[in-house]
């Protein structure tokens, strides 16, 4: 019971107010804790927006989730590591339980990492989970990025999210590198030494940059505490911030979906966030955690005790960065030495700088601008919520595979020494081979991929027109043989015919009214050329009339009354496309 007197003299005047109050109270369906919280935060509206969101289901949509979960796992285990890790380069004598290092003078960072590994309960497992999760994080990001690229999910309105994703992906590798450098073992020190060399390769200001970053000459005592702040504070904060924006944008845009019956550009077919999707996603978190924990329990990662403490004089065979930095290392191994020269009294080490300083920003800029580039070339200003099947955009798919090839060649080049020893080959020959492949591989991959896509499209077309091959051979009374083709269901057919097949742009007016070539025309010409490049080879999906003709053709051995029924189901499909195209 309320302590406020309900019957006050002026109540009559305020009847309307109270009614509004009443309504508000009644409309609130929430009770218990949820209601309590909503009364204080007003979160219910936002929450119900989120919880009613529908998510389409497909395994490839879970790649991003793998990235998200492994990042969360890194955050959790990283917090554990901070309790014991000492970010300091000051020397101490190791006297922990790892025998082959007893009595050796090492840095405090290294000692504390050894202690985490050998003397703190569960420490090694957590360290290994942290590091394996970091590797999984970077793998998942790349594969997720590939999914988004090849399905065209970056198209309007999702370009910004693509850019955010690219930045996340770049920061993830920087974050990983910072972490890898913390334990101050032989490999991380070698990595830092390499990083110092990279900075010095920047013309003219290089040595200043290096002195600034390391707080003096290499290695110094400043770098580990600095990297620590970057690794546990700065980059995680940026990562979490960008990641939140990334996810919010996904909610805002709604998830894309693969083409299928009933799935249009204006709906999302799937399960609501609550309860189905949240249960699945929550379950998937535990699966990812479980898989990473299993790997970490069974397989060593970064055995820093074996590497030994960092000391600038030794270096070990097999000094490689973690895999996500491998491509940059590979670029260094492939760049020829003649790119280093002296001019104006300065040494220009482009053999180092191109791979170490320029490669990553250039690569990520290209990745980041791709959606805008493609939109410009196609002139497509519509929103896209239905994904492309990769084969239906052969040029984009080809470009993607070419880029992957470039990346993979660099990646393998960074393991050239191990490949040489394991395959009994000469490291010099392997390096030459990779130097060749880096130029030849991508165009070749582009060409092959595009051809494959086109023939897949052609196969799809055949399938739509003549049905699926059944492997059953009929023999007619006149001795003729024929394979039976089974008709597709309307659902199956819809997937194969729903896509658009743009034609290359054609320039209409080359010159302006006065017959003068305008600069705009020049730009347009470039655009037309690119559009030609994208769309000149095209396999259009069968039109309804082609379909009709094929079915009345009657050579596919299937009874004729059935196609009629299919036609009825199939026709609306094409209709919808046309409708889509209009809006």
């Amino acid at each position: 019971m309320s302590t406020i007197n309900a019957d006050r003299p002026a109540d009559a005047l305020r009847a309307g107010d109270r009614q509004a109050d009443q309504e508000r109270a009644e409309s609130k369906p929430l009770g218990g804790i949820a209601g309590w919280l909503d009364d204080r935060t007003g979160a219910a509206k936002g929450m119900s927006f989120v919880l009613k969101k529908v998510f389409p289901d497909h395994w490839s949509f879970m790649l991003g989730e793998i990235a998200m979960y492994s990042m969360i796992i890194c955050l959790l285990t990283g917090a554990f590591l901070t309790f014991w890790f000492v970010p300091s380069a000051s020397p101490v004598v190791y006297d922990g339980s790892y025998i082959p290092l007893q009595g050796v003078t090492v840095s405090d960072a290294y000692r504390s990492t050894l202690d985490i590994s050998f003397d703190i309960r569960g420490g090694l497992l957590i360290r290994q989970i942290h590091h394996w999760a970091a590797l999984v994080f970077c793998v998942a990001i790349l594969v997720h990025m590939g999914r988004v690229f090849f399905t065209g999910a970056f198209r309007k309105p999702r370009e910004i999210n693509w850019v955010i994703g690219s930045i996340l992906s770049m920061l993830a590798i920087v974050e990983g590198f910072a972490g890898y450098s913390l334990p101050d073992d032989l490999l991380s020190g070698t990595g830092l030494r390499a990083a110092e060399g990279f900075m010095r390769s920047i013309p003219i200001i290089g040595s200043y940059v290096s002195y600034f970053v390391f707080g003096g000459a290499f290695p110094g005592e400043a770098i580990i505490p600095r990297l620590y702040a970057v690794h546990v504070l700065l980059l995680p904060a940026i990562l979490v911030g960008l990641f939140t924006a990334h996810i919010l944008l996904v909610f805002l845009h709604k998830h894309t979906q693969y083409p299928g019956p009933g799935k249009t550009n204006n709906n999302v077919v799937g399960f609501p966030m609550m309860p189905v999707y949240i249960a699945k996603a929550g379950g998937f978190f535990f699966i990812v955690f479980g898989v990473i924990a299993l790997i970490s329990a069974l397989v060593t990662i970064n055995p820093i005790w074996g590497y030994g403490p960092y000391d600038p004089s030794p270096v070990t065979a097999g000094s490689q960065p973690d895999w996500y930095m491998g491509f940059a290392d590979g670029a260094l191994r492939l760049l020829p030495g003649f790119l280093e020269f002296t001019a104006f009294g300065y040494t220009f080490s482009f053999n180092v700088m191109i791979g170490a300083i320029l490669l990553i920003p250039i690569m990520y800029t290209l990745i980041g601008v791709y959606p805008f580039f493609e939109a410009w070339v196609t002139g497509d200003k519509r929103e896209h919520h239905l994904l492309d099947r990769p084969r239906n955009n052969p040029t984009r798919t080809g470009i993607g595979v070419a880029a992957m090839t470039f990346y993979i060649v660099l990646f393998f080049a960074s393991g050239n020494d191990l490949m040489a020893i394991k395959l009994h080959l000469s490291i010099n020959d392997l390096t030459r081979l990779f130097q060749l492949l880096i130029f030849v591989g991508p165009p070749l991959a582009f060409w092959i991929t595009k051809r494959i896509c086109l023939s897949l499209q052609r196969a799809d077309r055949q399938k739509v027109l003549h049905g699926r091959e059944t492997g059953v051979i009929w023999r007619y009374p006149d001795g003729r043989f024929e394979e039976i083709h089974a008709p597709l269901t309307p659902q199956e057919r819809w997937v194969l015919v729903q896509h658009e097949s743009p034609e290359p742009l054609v320039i209409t007016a080359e010159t302006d009214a006065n017959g003068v070539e305008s600069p705009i025309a020049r730009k347009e010409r470039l655009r037309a050329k690119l559009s030609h490049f994208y769309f000149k080879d095209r396999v259009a999906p069968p039109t309804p009339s082609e379909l009709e003709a094929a079915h009345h053709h009657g050579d596919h051995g299937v009874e004729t009354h059935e196609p009629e029924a299919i036609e009825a189901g199939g026709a609306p499909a094409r209709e919808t496309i046309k409708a889509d195209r209009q809006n």
Partner: protein
Amino acid sequence: MNALAARRRHPAAIALLILVGLLVTGGAYAFLAPKEANASAVSADTVAEGKNLFLANCASCHGTNAQGTASGPSLVGVGAAAVDFQVGTGRMPLAGPNIQAQRQDVDKIKFDDQQISSMAAYVASLGAGPSVPDSQYTTVIQPGDQKEAGQDLTNNQRIARGGEIFRVNCAMCHNFAGAGGALTRGKYAPSLTGVTPKHMYEAMVSGPQSMPVFNDQNISPESKQEVISYLKAVDNQTNVGGLTLGNLGPVSEGMFVWLFGLTLLIGCAVWLGKKAA
């Protein structure tokens, strides 16, 4: 005594003194000098047997007097250690032209210990060189907190010092865990697991092929013993972190996470995706 004193000025005394002096220094030298000088002490029979074996198996490449030919280097002065290492690990006799002679499995080694040591004796007789090491330096130091006689470091600390020496001198070719590494043009530094302490020692003193020689001035015999003990300790240690993936560093971890980790996770994702349908 008096008699001796009386003859002190005898002219022969000086000659006698010189003789004694020579004997003492010679004997002391023979006793104290590095072992190489002892190599000639083996019996002439052994050397002869070694020479016969050499003529039958090695002379085609190394020449009848081990002076070297176009297909094999001179062995004068390489010492017994080099022969013991090369033949004992199965590298020699070389099977055929190859970028680098390779270690063979024990059952493929063509000679028994006695034959090897006679060939070693023969080669050592051609010119002084490092000899087969004393077993004192090839016994592996056992981990523990105790100190061995004449040592001021505990066994654990000596093993740790071996690790430091290894990282400074050897890891750049042989990898941090002795897993091996690539050199130029198809040459490589082999994995050091399973190599006997004696062969490890001999590899250091003889410097096979692309490997530098680590003589007693570079790394003292005791330090060599520490390096060997470190490598054995690494071999014997339980892998606390789990499977080592060949101790090849981040590359094998990367391969693993792509091939195994990703496959497993995508498998789970596909399974979950299926559950819905």
